[in-house]
């Protein structure tokens, strides 16, 4: 057991720190074009697609270097690495693993140069947590698929150039997971229609997407027909320890502590209130646990274990932090809680992070079934 980094890793951390010091303006000084320019600089460093192998144009970063990079960025309040989150998290790794040469040639350069923008089509109006039951039909017609149906909660569908789409190519196989395929297509393919959905804080971030007789060549399929579930599950081969997420939560807690420092409770400084102090201490402890869980997961990954339901633990912890942290902030605001402001906005908006990718109860199911071996519901 040790928490030491090698000289090479320390040198890498120093390089990242130096890069941030030179290139990253403070959050309030970031102009309109900041993110675009920032991404170009990241791409020059090969930090976009940093985890991908060098032969595919990636940065070839080790698991620990990925953690260092993400942690330093998170610490400095930098935006996510690359603006195309869906493309970098899902599409790139899946392309590397399952893409044909033609597909790689078509999509990889844009991903690496920050020119891409992807959305991912998973959930459907009748299919959410039970993703294996997805129903969007793609019927084979000669060298084409003809797609009919709809996807929902599709983030960025209204601005994305391309979609990573899960479809049902075979409704008649025994296991419902076996009839799924993945298709990659431009969003301007005829027959695709996007209907905006306004979220709880009035922002337009997700959509419903309708597919009416959308015709795409079979060559748009990623991986074998009927093997789409494997493509989706195998896509997340990069670092998923959640360490940098806990760094983000630490910054979030700093802000909450600052709010508590400047708040009164019953006419006295809020920090004299034992209950408030203990709540803050609980958050801090849970965030430490999250970070350390991340290091334990990372160690297992380095030693060659496939990530299992460990990632569900930190995902669940995130929910168990976001909800009471927002609650405490609103309590500190007193009557102002009913007004407008950053904390009030957050108290609605965090639900997106907590539900996205599987709600807390779904994570509890995953842990109970996969790790504790309890029967499926």
């Amino acid at each position: 057991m040790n928490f030491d980094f090698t000289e090479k890793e320390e040198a890498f951390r120093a390089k990242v720190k130096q890069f941030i010091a030179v290139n990253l303006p403070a959050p309030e000084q970031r102009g309109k074009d900041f993110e675009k320019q920032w991404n170009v600089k990241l791409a020059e460093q090969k930090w976009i697609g940093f985890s991908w192998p060098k032969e595919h144009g990636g940065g070839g970063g080790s698991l620990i270097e990925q953690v260092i990079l993400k942690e330093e960025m998170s610490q400095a309040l930098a935006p996510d690495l690359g603006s195309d989150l869906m493309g970098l998290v899902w599409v790139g790794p899946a392309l590397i693993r399952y893409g044909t040469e033609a597909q790689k040639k078509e999509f990889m350069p844009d991903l690496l140069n920050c020119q891409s923008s992807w959305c991912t089509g998973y959930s459907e109006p009748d299919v959410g947590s039970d993703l294996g039951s997805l129903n969007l039909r793609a019927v084979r017609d000669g060298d084409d698929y003809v797609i009919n149906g709809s996807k929902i909660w599709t983030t960025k569908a209204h601005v994305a150039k391309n979609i990573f789409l899960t479809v049902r190519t075979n409704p008649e196989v025994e296991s419902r997971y076996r009839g799924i395929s993945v298709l990659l297509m431009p969003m301007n393919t005829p027959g695709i229609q996007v209907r905006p959905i306004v979220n709880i804080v009035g922002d337009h971030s997700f959509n419903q997407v309708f597919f009416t007789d959308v015709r795409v060549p079979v060559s748009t399929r990623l991986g074998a027909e009927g093997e789409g579930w494997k493509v989706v599950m195998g896509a997340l081969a990069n670092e998923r320890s959640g360490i940098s997420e806990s760094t983000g939560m630490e910054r979030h807690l700093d802000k909450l502590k600052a709010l508590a420092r400047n708040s009164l409770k019953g006419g006295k400084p809020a920090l004299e209130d034992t209950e408030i102090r203990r709540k803050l201490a609980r958050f801090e402890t849970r965030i430490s646990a999250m970070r350390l869980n991340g290091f334990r997961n990372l160690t297992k990954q380095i030693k060659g274990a496939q990530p299992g339901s460990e990632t569900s633990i930190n995902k669940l912890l995130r929910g168990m932090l976001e909800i009471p942290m927002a609650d405490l902030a609103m309590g500190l605001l007193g009557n102002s809680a009913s007004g407008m402001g950053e904390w009030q906005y957050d108290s609605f908006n965090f639900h997106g992070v907590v539900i996205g990718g599987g709600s807390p109860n779904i994570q509890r199911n995953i842990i109970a079934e996969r790790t504790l071996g309890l029967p499926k519901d």
Partner: protein
Amino acid sequence: MDFGFSEEQEMLRDQVRKFLEDRCSLPQVRAIAASNEGYCRDLWGQLSKLGWLGLTLPEEFGGVGLSWVDLVVILEETGRTLFPSPLLSTTLAATAINEFGTPQQQQHWLPSLANGSCIGTLALLDETDFLSPKAIQMTAKASERGYLLSGEKRFVQDATVADVFIVAFRSGPANDDLGLAIISRHDKGVSVEETEGWDRTKRTGVLKLDTVQIAADAILSETLLGAQAIEVLIDRGALAVSAETIGVCEGILNLTSQYALDRKQFGSPIGRYQGVKHPLAEIYVDIECTKSLVYYAAWALDGEPNEAPAAIAKAKAYASQSVCDAGVSGVQLHGAIGYTDEYDMQLFIKRSKWSRATYGDEDFHYDRVAKFGGL
């Protein structure tokens, strides 16, 4: 960066687990818990042969010279099977002498603590159970040959079987007017009395001192150590109990998950229902978090002592809350059978109350976390 156990540590874990499964499974635990002494002399002798008693003591004093991370491995396993023995107490007493004692004191006491011929324990707390150097009120009177001590120490683990006590005392009103004395069970004026408790696998008692003569060479480190030494020992105790607590929670999870698989209601194992599944998942998540916090705290104690107090406060706070919740969920998920004497769940919930309170509950440690966190 390697936040995992070494091959040797995994081997140690296997060895401890196998030993306890073979020699002290729950029926034996019940038998020992029903005995007067509260531990088994035969097993105690074997622990010493296996090197577990002097695990972290230097080899020159009969120890094995290993680290707190190694000790955590053993304590997790003794927690899992609720192994009743003065292992924890003796380890802490030996730690006190090892860290603060003079070479003569170390030479005199450590070999017999490491080979099990002497059982040791800490006696820090006075009338109040408030875990702070300030709360230590037992005041020594200076005498020609050192000090005279009178009064009672409460919450002394394994008091009735201990041969030697590390006793905290006050020499004056200032915060740092504190010292630690080595007092033998056979010293004149020393008596002990068991305190009744629900968890018969953990014994507690009162140490009574009636004008006990403390010679100068029985004061740890010869000069007074001050408040910090007391805090160090409280931290060591909190970490050791936290490590055992991981095992206790795992014991509860294993017992209850198995019951959820076996017990059928409404035509299906109850583990299929989310009302059962979700609390079990929560126990699992709490165990994983406690492990991360405890392992890190143990590592800090070995390698980054400055970080240890805050890390230990977090570990014990989380462990206390988790074991309390797990105990309650464990009984509730079982239903009526969990409320019986014959079923083993009762042993675990009784331990959960002991573990939560001993060396500070979650409120105590979260208050420390708040302080360390700049609040």
